[in-house]
Every structure is written in C-alpha cells, then in structure tokens.
C-alpha cells in the first residue's frame, strides 16, 4: 500500500537526493584534498629544504622551492657525520631482531598450537598477561643483566632478546593462526613419515607466510623507530643506530660557523626512506598487521 502512494513522488525525491549526493561528493573531495595538502606539507617542506643551499634555509620569507636543487647535500651528510655507519648498524639490528622474532615465535607458536604439554595453559595465560606490562618495568633489570654480560655499548641488547620467542604479541598471533589450520595436514605428513620439524617447515610455514610477513613488518618498523633502547645501551658514535645518530646530529647541529639545517633535513629524509619504501613494497601486510593488532584487543 505505502509503495503505491510513494511512486509518483519518488522521481523528484531521487533527483534531489542524487543532486545532494553529488554535492556531498564534491565537498568530500575538496575536504580530502585540503587535508591531504595539510598532512603532506611537513614532509614536502623537509624534502625541499634538504635540497636547498645553506643560505636559502635562512631566507625570509622562505622560498617554496630551492632555486637549484642541491643534490650534493645528501653525500655531504655522509662526510659530516657517521651516517653510513649508523645506517648499517640500524640495518643489522633490525634485520637480526626481525629474523629472530619471526623464527623463534614460529617455533614457539607451533608448540602452543600443536603439542599438549604440562603447564601449557598456565604459561599461555602468563604470556598473554605480559602484554599488559609496560616495558618500563623490565627496563632496569634488563639493563643490569646486559651490563653483567658486558654488552653495554654494543648492539646485542637490541636484537638478542628477539631470538627468545619474539614476545607475547608475535606468539599469540601465530598460535591463533596455526590453530585455524586443519590438523589433517599434519597428520597426512606424519603418515608419510615426516618428523615434527619437517611438518612445521614444509607443511605449516608455507601456509603461514602472510602472517609471518605481517609480523616481520611490524617488528621492522618498531626496531627502526626505537629510540630509548639505543639511547640506553649505545655510547660511542660509531655504534649508534639511525635514530640515535640523527638525534646526535641534531643536538650538535651547526657547529661554529657551519649552518647545517639543510643537511640535517637530508639526513631526516634518508632516515625515513627505508620505512616508506617498505610501506609501498609490503602495503598489504602493513594494513593487515594494523588490523590484526586491532583485533587482538
């Protein structure tokens, strides 16, 4: 009944609605573009500043683009500070940490998901509880432990712990994933005489690849960004990671007579580039990782 009444009016209703929709759409695009411009501006400014000459940085009003792009600023960073060394240190620390995290968490998650052992449920509950614990609490005892081992001013404290299970979050994510894989896969391989290790490596790991990639991305970003760890453990400049080195550069910027802001900006750009590249290469895993960490809660 109601529909027959509505029919004569519907066309005009639809027309006005579609006009409103179109206006909404234009409004949304304007807003999105405006916001995108505002959000992008800081990096736009940093990149263009990294290509200016020393004098141009201090011009007022500041020019939007450098007159001539000074690509030479980038190699100069490597001459001025130990940027290359810091970069390599970061790559080593983060690669070892990522590798250790992914490998050891896989093995541990396999144990939680597929083997019955005494104390498993209790240990798993404790593992989950550790996610609530702020890292600040264990910071000092860990420092004292590494001091005992003579590891202060080395990069070992920054990656060795990752090889011990990789932490609650990785273990939890991987365990949940392995539990969704049918046990029939394992059993079929077992009948064929495969050992438990071969089942893990040849049956399960190939299926786990997307989750492993996701975890690797999360750990990589976290490691690259980490500041407090290097600040606590590293003392001499040749051992610094990028994060610590960049701060060191900023704190000692512009030694007498040398304005180095443009070089500092070049260093800042270079310190972020690996993350941005990783984002574009592994965008799918990135987004998955974020959403997964959201589901965890």
């Amino acid at each position: 009944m109601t529909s027959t009444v509505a029919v004569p009016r519907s066309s005009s209703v639809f027309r006005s609605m579609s006009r409103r929709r179109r206006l909404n759409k234009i409004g949304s695009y304007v807003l999105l573009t405006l916001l995108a411009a505002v959000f992008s501006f800081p990096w736009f400014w940093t990149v263009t500043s990294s290509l200016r000459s020393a004098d141009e940085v201090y011009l007022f009003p500041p020019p939007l683009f450098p007159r001539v792009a000074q690509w030479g600023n980038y190699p100069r960073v490597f001459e001025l500070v130990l940027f290359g060394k810091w970069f390599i240190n970061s790559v080593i620390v983060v690669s070892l940490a990522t590798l250790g995290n992914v490998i050891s968490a896989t093995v541990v998650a396999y144990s939680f998901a597929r083997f019955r052992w005494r104390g498993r449920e209790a240990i798993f509950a404790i593992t989950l509880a550790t996610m609530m614990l702020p890292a600040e609490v264990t910071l000092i005892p860990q420092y004292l432990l590494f001091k005992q081992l003579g590891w202060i001013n080395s990069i070992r404290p920054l990656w060795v712990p990752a090889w011990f299970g990789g932490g609650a979050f990785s273990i939890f994510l991987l365990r949940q994933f392995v539990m969704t894989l049918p046990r029939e896969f394992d059993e079929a391989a077992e009948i064929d005489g495969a050992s438990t290790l071969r089942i893990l490596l040849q049956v399960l790991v190939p299926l786990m690849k997307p989750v492993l990639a996701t975890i690797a991305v999360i750990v990589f970003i976290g490691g690259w960004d980490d500041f407090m760890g290097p600040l606590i453990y590293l003392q001499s400049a040749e051992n610094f990671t990028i994060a610590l080195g960049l701060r060191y550069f900023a704190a000692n910027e512009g030694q007498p007579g040398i304005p180095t802001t443009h070089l500092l900006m070049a260093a800042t750009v270079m310190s972020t580039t690996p993350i941005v590249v990783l984002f574009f290469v592994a965008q799918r895993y990135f987004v998955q990782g974020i959403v997964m960490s959201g589901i965890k809660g």
Partner: protein
Amino acid sequence: MAASTALITAPRNRSFLTRLLGYHTQAETRECLLGYAYAAPWLLGLLIFVLGPVLVSLYLSLTKYDVISNPVFQGIANYKRAFFEDEQFWPSLGRTFKFALIVVPVGTTGSLLLALLLNQGLSGTNVYRTLFFLPHLTPAVAMAILWTFLLHPVVGPVNYVLSLVGIKGPGWFSDTQWALPSVVIASLWAGFGGNRMMIFLAGLQGVPQELYDAADVDGAGVWHRFWHVTLPMISPTLFFNLIMGVIGALKVFALAYVATSGGPSWATWFYAIHLYNWSFNYFEMGYGCALAWIFAAIVVVLTLIQFRLSRRWVYYTGE
C-alpha cells in the same frame, strides 16, 4: 588382541619420565617433551627477560641502588619519596595526563572523521589513505627534528604563514607556554591518519549495509545514521583505539626528549622523561624501578576503569 594387551601393560612399565610428567603412554610423554623443546626459546625468554626482571624490579624498587655499590633495602622509602618529596613527580605526571587528555580525544575524533571521509567508496580513496598514513611512518626522532624546523620561531614556515595574516607566531618549542602544544601538534599530525584511522576503516567496513538501508527506509538523516547505526556498530573498535591511545599517550618520550629535552623549564618534562632521567642519568636504579611500578599501576588502573566503563557504551554484536 595384541594391541589391547599392550594398552593394559603399558602403564605398568612406564618409564621414569612418563611417571615424572604424570602421563600414561610413551606417546604422550614424547609429545610433551617435544612441546617443551619447541617452546624452549620462549620459556627461557619469559624467565630471563620478563619474569626474572619483574621480580628484580619489584625488589630494587624497595632498595637504594646506584649500580656501583650493592642495593640497600629501605622498604617503601622510594614510593614515599615519589609521592611526597620528588618535586617533579606530580608535575610530570600531571603534564603527561594533560597531554593524554588533549591528544586522545582530539586524535581519536580526528581519526574517526578521516575514516568516515574515506569510507564513502569514492574513487581515489587509496591515494588519500596513503597520504594520510605517511606521516605516521615518520620515526619519532625524525618527527621531532622536522617539527622543530617547521615551528622554528624565525625561519619556520608556520610562523611565516601566521605573519601573512597578521599574527606574530609564538616561539613554539622554545616557549614555556607553547612547548606542550607543539608536542601535541606534532603527535596529532602523525596520529590522525595512523594505525587508529586504519583500524576505524576496517571497523567501518564491517558494518552491514542492511543496517544503513534500514535506517534509510526509516528516513534517518546523516547524523542519525552515524549516531544510531555507525557508532554503536564500531564501538568495540573505538574502545580498542581509546585503550591503545591512552597507553601510547602516557608513554610519550622520544618526541619530547629530542625536540625539547623536557624543557624549556620543565614545560615538556613528561613522566617517561622523568623516569629515564632518574634511572639512566642519575643511575638511581632503585628509585627508577619504583617510578616504573607506579607507572605500571597507573596504566593497569586506567585500563581497568575503561573496561568497567565500556560495559555502558560498547556494543558487541555477538552477544
């Protein structure tokens, strides 16, 4: 027949290990031992890097310990010191709360609005999403340097733009009044389009279209649709983002440490900087541990309060 005899006789000659672990069969024992073997890295890690340090930290928080000489037990003196003697304890805590109270509501609202804008199915959404997300990828140290430059009182572009509209910009990071807002601006820039927005987007995509269609049939406007359909349906996502947002904001460290070293005159001296300073500049490890436990207690209590409050407003479809 043979199999059943084996089953009956097996318990009688259980090996020592099988009896020790309380199992009946060899196979169960084998599975258990393999389980331990695979879990070994984490069993060790949990002990060495988590549970051990937790106990040590609890103990040290009750001592005076300067790393050089042995720890001296002194009861709850460190906690008393924090609450009643340390002049920067309450101010740093208050400052951190103030920071969280601005950054979490504003940041969460902003992320939700961006997600709503992106969730309209417009073409080109991916490009915008990436542009909003990129600031979040900036490492904290780079972020501090970049914003120190943008907000430079003399040559910074922000004050230049302000001067165009006749406003004399403040000293930002170097001004006691404006240092905290400067840290807020930098972290909001990175936070609006970051993980939070992505999680909101995933949440929004999970809202069934039927609910919107039903709301349309009922003649609901944009606001009603949002208030009565979208918001209840994404309330678990919102809740998660609030929990993580509060914890993240309370931990603010690298950004402020690099941009201002906690200054000028304590203006950005946050709790984590306070903790770091006592622990690793003055090497008062006992006091540092006490500060860490107070922080842990605050985080746990705030999270529990939020869980308690969530019963009133978070809607779970499954229930």
